[in-house]
């Protein structure tokens, strides 16, 4: 049952990522792309969590944590860039 | 302490760099003192190491006490000792010169200089392929920073080419190291050599690819045709003491070729033996040809010297391509000569440029120099040496290299090398007569040059006569070095004493 659920969830996450990709490619605007990118980061947390479950290992916890922290920062950076050009001023 | 002597060429500049870089600003006298003392210390260490190496024993230093092939080792043999000594000698000239004021034209000169030495020394000492990569990066990044010292458009532009090409080269290095690791399962060069001797046939292609790609990387560093393009402008643009130090940079590439291929692809490597040889040989000849043309074409003294460096690269690589003990011995003698002399010429070119005002180092008529006589004398000495005319070291070096060529090799090497010499002769006599003779009319220009600059140049150029006077002992050393290099089994046995049993 668990394995089955994992498969289904994986499939859903992959589809989610593909839709992120679709938006990233289509755009049309920069914020759209950034949003897609940001979502992709978040969705990849799901991917890592599922990997941990799959491998029965907590080794990947920090990776997920880091994505949560750092994905945000890169989104902030791009937004700041589009808003102000100069991201540190 | 004596057992730690081998690691000192790395530790001394590292610590000196730390001391120098802790504070960015001010304290120039303190920084100069530290830098000069560290460099002199390095010279003393290098002399000590040569003394150790001269016994003929190969000594290694297992960092972290992890024995080869598992840990990283520093290997001291005659070759690495010689290169360390050469680096220290060159560095002293450059650093003294820099203390005349070039070090104040930007931030952190001395610290970067020391770390550049760290990279160079590390590359000369390491016995580990990946560690070689790391030290290459250290010396490259330090050289990028030093190249920019003082700023200016030409430097920036030359840097872009230099840096981008070397970054691509670094990627290639990683690929090559990866392949070699994948094929042999080790990173220690001696261990790799040993494993190559018993390599399954299905892996030979891999090793070939890895080794030849590595050759491209080293060729890029050594500035061999067609990978030399970064060199002329970068060397011509670099601040003088940096350019002088750069004289050893191409030699790092040549050293790496010599080290890696004589060790790993010696006769015991079976079908893979000497797989680099023909490539190096032909590329060396091409380099000689191009450099000869470049020397004639150069319209600026510093560019001219840069092309002279390229000639030396071609000459040295030709020696590597011949691969006989005689050739290796000859090229080592030539290497010592060319490094010091071209280093001195870069400094001298800068001094000449300073005294010529607007004309700078361009080979055009300019105003006469305040200290034209002294500069002319040094220029004459440096030129004779670098062209390879008697009675200075270049003549002997060239004769040794020519003499080392055998049979049909002579048919190729001799004309090219001699024509390249002729090209240098034509170019340098043109440059000298234009700058010192044609520029005698008009008011004197420039101010009196600092004594430290003279000292730096004289330090380096005095190598030319000294190498002649001491030709006997030096060539005895290089001969023994060549003999050591062509019998790598001794190094392997030293590093991996259990290997025989294991097989």
């Amino acid at each position: 049952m668990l394995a089955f659920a994992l498969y289904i969830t994986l499939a859903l996450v992959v589809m989610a990522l593909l839709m992120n990709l679709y938006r990233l490619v289509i755009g049309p605007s920069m914020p759209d792309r950034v949003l897609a990118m940001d979502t992709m980061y978040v969705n990849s947390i799901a991917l890592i969590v599922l990997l941990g479950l799959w491998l029965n290992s907590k080794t990947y916890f920090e990776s997920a944590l880091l994505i949560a922290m750092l994905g945000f920062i890169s989104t902030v950076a791009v937004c700041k860039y589009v808003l102000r050009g100069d991201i540190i001023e | 302490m004596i057992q730690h002597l081998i690691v000192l060429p790395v530790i001394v500049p590292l610590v000196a760099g730390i001391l120098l870089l802790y504070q960015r600003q001010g304290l120039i006298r303190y920084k100069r003192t530290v830098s000069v003392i560290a460099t002199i210390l390095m010279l003393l260490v290098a002399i000590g190491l040569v003394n150790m190496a001269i016994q003929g024993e190969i000594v290694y230093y297992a960092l972290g006490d992890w024995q080869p092939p598992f840990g990283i080792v520093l290997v001291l043999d005659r070759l690495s000792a010689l290169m360390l000594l050469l680096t220290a000698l060159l560095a002293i000239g450059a650093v003294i010169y820099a203390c005349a004021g070039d070090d104040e034209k930007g931030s952190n000169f001395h610290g970067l200089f020391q770390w550049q030495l760290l990279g160079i020394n590390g590359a000369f000492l390491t016995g580990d392929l990946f560690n070689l990569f790391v030290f290459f990066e250290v010396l490259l990044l330090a050289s990028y920073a030093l190249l920019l010292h003082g700023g200016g458009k030409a430097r920036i532009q030359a840097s872009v080419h230099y840096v981008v090409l070397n970054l691509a080269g670094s990627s290639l290095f990683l690929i090559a190291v990866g392949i070699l690791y994948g094929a042999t399962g080790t990173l220690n060069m001696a261990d790799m050599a040993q494993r190559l001797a018993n390599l399954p046939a299905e892996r030979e292609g891999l090793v070939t690819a890895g080794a030849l790609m590595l050759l491209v990387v080293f060729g890029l560093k050594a500035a061999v045709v067609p990978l030399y393009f970064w060199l002329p402008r970068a060397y011509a643009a670099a601040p003088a003491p940096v350019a002088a130090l750069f004289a050893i940079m191409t030699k790092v590439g040549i050293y790496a070729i010599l080290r890696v291929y004589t060790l790993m692809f010696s006769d015991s490597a079976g079908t893979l033996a000497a797989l680099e040889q023909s490539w190096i040989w032909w590329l060396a000849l091409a380099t000689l040809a191009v450099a000869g043309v470049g020397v004639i074409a150069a319209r600026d003294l510093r560019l001219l010297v840069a092309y002279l460096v390229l000639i030396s690269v071609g000459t040295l690589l030709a020696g590597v391509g011949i691969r006989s003990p005689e050739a290796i011995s000859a090229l080592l003698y030539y290497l010592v000569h060319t490094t010091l002399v071209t280093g001195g010429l870069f400094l001298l070119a800068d001094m000449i440029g300073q005294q010529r005002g607007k004309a700078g180092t361009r080979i055009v008529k300019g105003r006469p120099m305040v200290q034209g006589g002294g500069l002319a004398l040094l220029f004459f000495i440096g030129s004779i040496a670098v062209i390879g005319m008697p009675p200075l070291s270049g003549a002997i070096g060239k004769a040794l290299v020519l003499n080392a060529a055998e049979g049909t090799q002579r048919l190729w090497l001799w004309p090219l090398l001699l024509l390249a010499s002729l090209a240098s002769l034509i170019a340098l006599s043109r440059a000298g007569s234009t700058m010192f003779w044609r520029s005698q009319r008009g008011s004197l220009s420039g101010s009196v040059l600092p004594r430290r600059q003279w000292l730096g140049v004289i330090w380096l150029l005095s190598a030319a006569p000294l190498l002649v006077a001491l030709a006997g002992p030096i060539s005895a050393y290089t001969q023994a070095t060549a003999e050591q290099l062509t019998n790598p089994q001794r190094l392997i046995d030293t590093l991996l004493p259990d290997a025989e049993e294991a097989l």
Partner: protein
Amino acid sequence: METLYAITTGVLTACGLYLTLRGRTFPVVVGLTLTSYAVNLFLFSMGGLTTDGAAIVHGDGRYADPLPQALVLTAIVIGFAMTAFVVILAMRARSEAGNDHVDGKKEDRE
């Protein structure tokens, strides 16, 4: 799996190198970064691909080769340092030359 992996490194290398052949500094920097990603993947795989065996010693099991991992770690760091330098060099070159051509050319000829 190995085939797929190799194709991926190959494509990434090709894309990165294509960019390094461009005439403006920024694409070149991006290309170098991309190439270094590819090279890191390449180097990483030199110990073979292990799907379940992080090199954390806990008694049993099969482990991935830790050595290439350590090498890649070093390579990533060095690559970052180099990228940082080259991108700022590109910036500086633009400020000196007035344009961002890799050769500092005034006008585009091609």
